[in-house]
């Protein structure tokens, strides 16, 4: 089950990760608005996380159960945080 797997080029992924990291750090120097910079750096972080999960964790070649295990908790946490926003953040 594990033997026939053709694994991705780990070094190439690593190069991408490092480039993205540098891009993330440089993005904070851009003359953009606060929310634009924040969206940019978190988008970069999400891409990096996806690269690690898909390639190093081999999510690319997993079945739906493993996918669900990776995605459902993330959605749950995001949903929980969003529901709590009115209560914790916007109260006066």
């Amino acid at each position, binding site marked *: 089950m594990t033997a026939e797997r053709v694994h991705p080029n780990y070094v190439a992924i690593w190069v991408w990760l490092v480039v993205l990291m540098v891009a993330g750090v440089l993005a904070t120097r851009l003359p953009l608005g606060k929310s634009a910079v924040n969206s940019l750096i978190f988008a970069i972080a999400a891409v990096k996380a996806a690269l690690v999960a898909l390639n190093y964790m081999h999510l690319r070649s997993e079945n739906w159960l493993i996918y669900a295990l990776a995605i*459902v*908790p993330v959605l749950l946490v995001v949903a929980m945080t969003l529901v709590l926003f*009115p209560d*914790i953040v*916007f109260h006066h």
Partner: protein
Amino acid sequence: MSNPPRVAPSPSSVAQAAHGELGFWRTYVFTTDHKTIAKQYLSLGLFMAFVGGYLAYVMRWQLAFPDTSIPGFGFVGPETYNALVTNHGTIMVFFVAMPILLGAFGNFLIPLMIGARDMAFPRLNMLSFWILAVSALLILISFFVPAGGASAGWTGYAPLSARAEYTGVNWGINLWLFAHALEFSSFLIGGVNFLTTAITMRAPGMTFSRLPLVIWQLLTASVIFLLSVGPLIAAAVMLLMDRLLGTSFFVPEGGGDPLLWEHLFWFFGHPEVYVILLPGLGAVLEVLAVFSRKPIFGYRWIIYSTLATGVLSFLVWAHHMFISGMDPRLVMPFSIATILISVPLSLIIFSMILTLWKGSIRLATPMLWALGFIAMFILGGLTGIVNGSAALDIQIHGTHFVVAHFHYTLLSVVIFGGFTGLYFWFPKMFGRMMNEPLGKLHFLLTLLFFNLTFFPMHAVGLAGMPRRIANPLQYEFLKAVQPLNVQITISAIGLIIAQLPFLINFAWSIMAGRKAESNPWEAATLEWTAPSPPPHGNWGEAIPTVYRGPYEYSPPGVREDYLPQDRALAAGSAKERR
């Protein structure tokens, strides 16, 4: 579906089974056998139930006859009373309900009912029990540290719980938090083990649509637990830092937010209710099918309802917080979701009742407990609608009405669901039968005193008596309900005494009960194909192969009135389902 051939036992399990003599420690204490671990969970749960019951007795005595010397305890001051309230809740939920319903039933049933020789990770299984044991020990120790046990309520609302000076209790609450951390990690490991076992180790032919419902419900409970406990673990770390390092995650003076704790607590706290409920429901479903000799009515629909309950359980947590000061616009969505959770659960209840229709019902002890469970659970569910309605919650929040409600749901699950399972699987667990008349006496007394204890609590709560007050006589408006308080206390003592027949029966039957055959109830699921009690490795030469669903009772064309899951039939002699 084609039936796979019988599979030879894996080498490791043969090696395990061959280890006849492991010595006392490896056989009874540091064992990796899932059945012995289940018994360990059961004993821990029963022991802690008596600790929790003792606390309940002291509390009830104090409420009925405030500030008198309590036989077997002495005087209770307000600080002690708060510690009693807190630890009664914590012990009953985390050290009785979870070890018995999830720990004992899960460990015992999952491998036996899916046709596995043991858990996927037997040593991890042992570890999770011993972590729980240490955690229970911490809770017991916490009573004896200076200033006594934790006293901020089982919900540990911050900032009361976040600074020692608000309660006067320092190490009591710290130990209580450590105990929680250990308890959570124990059941996290346990839940991962359950799920992995059920996903990867089912016997040949045991598809998901042939799994017994109790397994479905144990698995759903494990998923709910794994996905809900995380935020509370994070919150517990923060609370511990607040206490030990003086940070202010939940203390407003330092910029923290007490409501955040409430949210994170209930994000776990409410799903936890279903973690406890579902295994109890599952045990009752198994018993209903066996003792009415009928297939469960609408097997698939129960699975859908169970899953729907699991999903909905994540959407209702804030109904504990309607009057906490949360955003009033969020209240109605949570109230609606809460009341909607009655839909899948009523479907399960209807299915239970319809299973009785045209059955051949035998009122043996497990069946009595199962029927008692249905009755009590309907009552608890219906009062839940009262609580779930936000406007009514304004009046009854934090009163004894709520106490009555959650004892009708949670305690009825533990008592009625737990004893259903225990009386039913006792022959398989210990290889002996329990005494029927004593079991029936136990049931009747428990049913009587349970209702005499908790039914009047609704009235006391409606009259406005808050939970967690130590002395109702300090309030003029509660003078009228004091006779009810006295009655509740006497009944509660009766409820505790009503457990004596069980203790006698349990101890006597383990030692000298009638020997049980492998299938004394003529049930169709896999655990009854193993010897009673099953040896290490559960089955001898080969594990059973599964040919059909779990509830083939009274099928047409078969001489007996049940068809075990593992019996191969010659083609054409009887139709096979699914």
